């Protein structure tokens, strides 16, 4: 009797397994969550060291135009301006072209074309950014030098490289959001006697608007965080750019060239970590923007 009671009340093998499995999968999830927390905390602590330990004012850092870490001038404005201009410019150029290609593929060309093009677009999305940077260095920079004179390095070259880099990603996301528009909408619009262009411009684009917006923000976030491809073509001089052909430097390009040349814990090194913090904050902001634009679509 005692034996039976014991067997009935103790947990079965199944429930032990269940407990074990749940624990393992939960631990993995917690590990990832904890990792994110640690990354945010570490980079924030490193990033504010310049303001706390080296006595540089936050506002001075953000609005100063003179970046000479060896002379203790820490003004990050040139890099911030350049980063934003290349990002916004490449996003603005890429958006209409991604839209046009997506319209042509989903609404005008037969389905078979999409099946052939999709692997190609996937390949283009997967091409490493270094290759895009190298393309910029060997084709775009010499071409710009020939057309506009100067060195060819600068904001325009970086914009072209970033545009090429984010176009496949944005196109494929835009295509997805067009394909997600229910077929019924198209049929209803055609049934009312609308032409194909009227259907595209008044039904499909408005209903896919949020998806397109998300694609644009996603592409721009990628452009903002890209380091090596930009570093290869931007010229790397930390001054506020006065024109599109001026050599300049972004947050990411200064980071890639700088971290190896400074000693941990010094003020000039801390200044670089502060740039990394700006980058982190901006990528979080892009993330927030993306959530906002895709949430509106769900409503």
């Amino acid at each position, binding site marked *: 009797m005692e034996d039976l009671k014991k067997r009935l009340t103790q947990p079965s093998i199944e429930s032990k397994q*269940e407990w074990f*499995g*749940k624990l393992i*999968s939960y631990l*993995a*999830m917690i*590990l*990832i969550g904890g*990792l*994110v*927390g*640690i*990354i945010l905390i*570490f*980079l924030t602590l*490193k990033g504010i060291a310049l303001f706390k330990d080296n006595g540089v004012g936050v506002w001075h850092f953000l609005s100063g135009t003179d970046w000479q870490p060896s002379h203790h001038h820490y003004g990050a404005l040139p890099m911030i301006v350049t980063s934003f201009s290349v990002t916004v410019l490449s996003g603005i150029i890429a958006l209409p*072209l991604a839209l*046009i290609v997506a*319209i*042509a*593929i989903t609404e*005008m060309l037969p389905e078979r074309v999409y099946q052939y093009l999709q692997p*190609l677009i*996937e*390949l283009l999305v*997967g*091409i*490493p950014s*270094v*290759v895009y*940077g*190298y*393309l910029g*260095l*060997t*084709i775009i920079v010499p071409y710009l030098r020939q057309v506009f004179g100067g060195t060819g390095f600068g904001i325009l070259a970086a914009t072209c490289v970033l545009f*090429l880099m984010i176009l*496949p990603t944005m196109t494929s996301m835009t295509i997805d959001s067009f394909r997600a528009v229910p077929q019924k909408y198209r049929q209803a619009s055609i049934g009312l006697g*609308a*032409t*194909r*262009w009227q259907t595209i411009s008044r039904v499909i684009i408005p209903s896919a608007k949020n998806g397109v917006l998300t694609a644009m923000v996603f592409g721009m*976030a990628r452009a*903002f*965080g*890209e*380091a090596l491809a930009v*570093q*290869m073509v931007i010229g790397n001089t930390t001054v506020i750019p006065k024109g599109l052909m001026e050599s300049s430097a972004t947050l*990411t390009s200064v*980071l*890639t060239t700088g*971290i*190896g040349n400074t000693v941990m814990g010094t003020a000039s090194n801390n200044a670089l*970590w502060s740039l*990394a913090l700006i*980058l*982190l904050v901006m*990528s979080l902001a892009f*993330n927030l923007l993306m959530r906002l634009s895709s949430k509106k679509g769900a409503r």
Partner: protein
Amino acid sequence: MRPERVDRLATVIVLSLAGIVGMVVFSLLIYILAMGIPHINWHFLTAEAESFSAGGGIRDQLFNSLYLVVLTLIVSVPLALCAAIYLSEYAPANRWTQGLRLAIEVLSSLPSVVVGLFGYLVFVLQFGFDFSLLAGALALTILNLPILTRSCEDALRQVPYLQRQAGLGLGMSKWRVTTKIVLPAALPGIITGTILSAGRIFGEAAALIYTAGQSSPAINYADWNPFSPTSFLNPLRPAETLAVHIWKVNSEGLVPDARAVSNGSAAVLIITILLFNLIARYAGHRIKQHLTK
């Protein structure tokens, strides 16, 4: 203008612009391949890289890239799979789960330089791994985890709920249902996702220059002891990958044939990624066929 004419005009404009964009992008792709493929020969793939003279190959860089992908997948696949199982099978629909999902999203939006810097700070300096394959693999794991978790979760969610109910109805535990029924059914999706993510980390460079390092010391391919400092399997040696090599050769390299080396390397990178994509499609397809037989 009449709507019909607008329609015709718009069609012509859109199609021709799309055609031009497609042609430009496509011709750039052809250009890289056409410039690079003539440089690819047995010598290029199997010779060591030269630091100052022409005629260097990419043997070590190519091996480092592939080895790094393997190391990264060894760490990230189990983690991502377990996390995906938690999210798709166990996670209750509450704020805490939402927070965890947000964490994954934040992780996926981090620029790769920032991940590289974090890796430098923690793995290279704090843990004392120095510039090493291990530090590089851990940094790449951070980049890879969110993508992999998401694709694994998608694959798990696509398994019909009916199959889980059938298992649960037989008295199996949820964990057993997941590992014996759901996981095999989701395998094609998981494998496709893994190979695609492998292609992505294969070409990563920004996260690696301060974690795996930018130098490749002489390594011995006959030494199979992973603890020997010159062994090709030693995870604690610094390792320059193919993508880093392209960047290095162009920005601070001293070799006279930098163009030739980077053309060849770029073509090898693209061809390898194309192979990854093709294998991902083929493998997913084959396993699905095998399972439904």
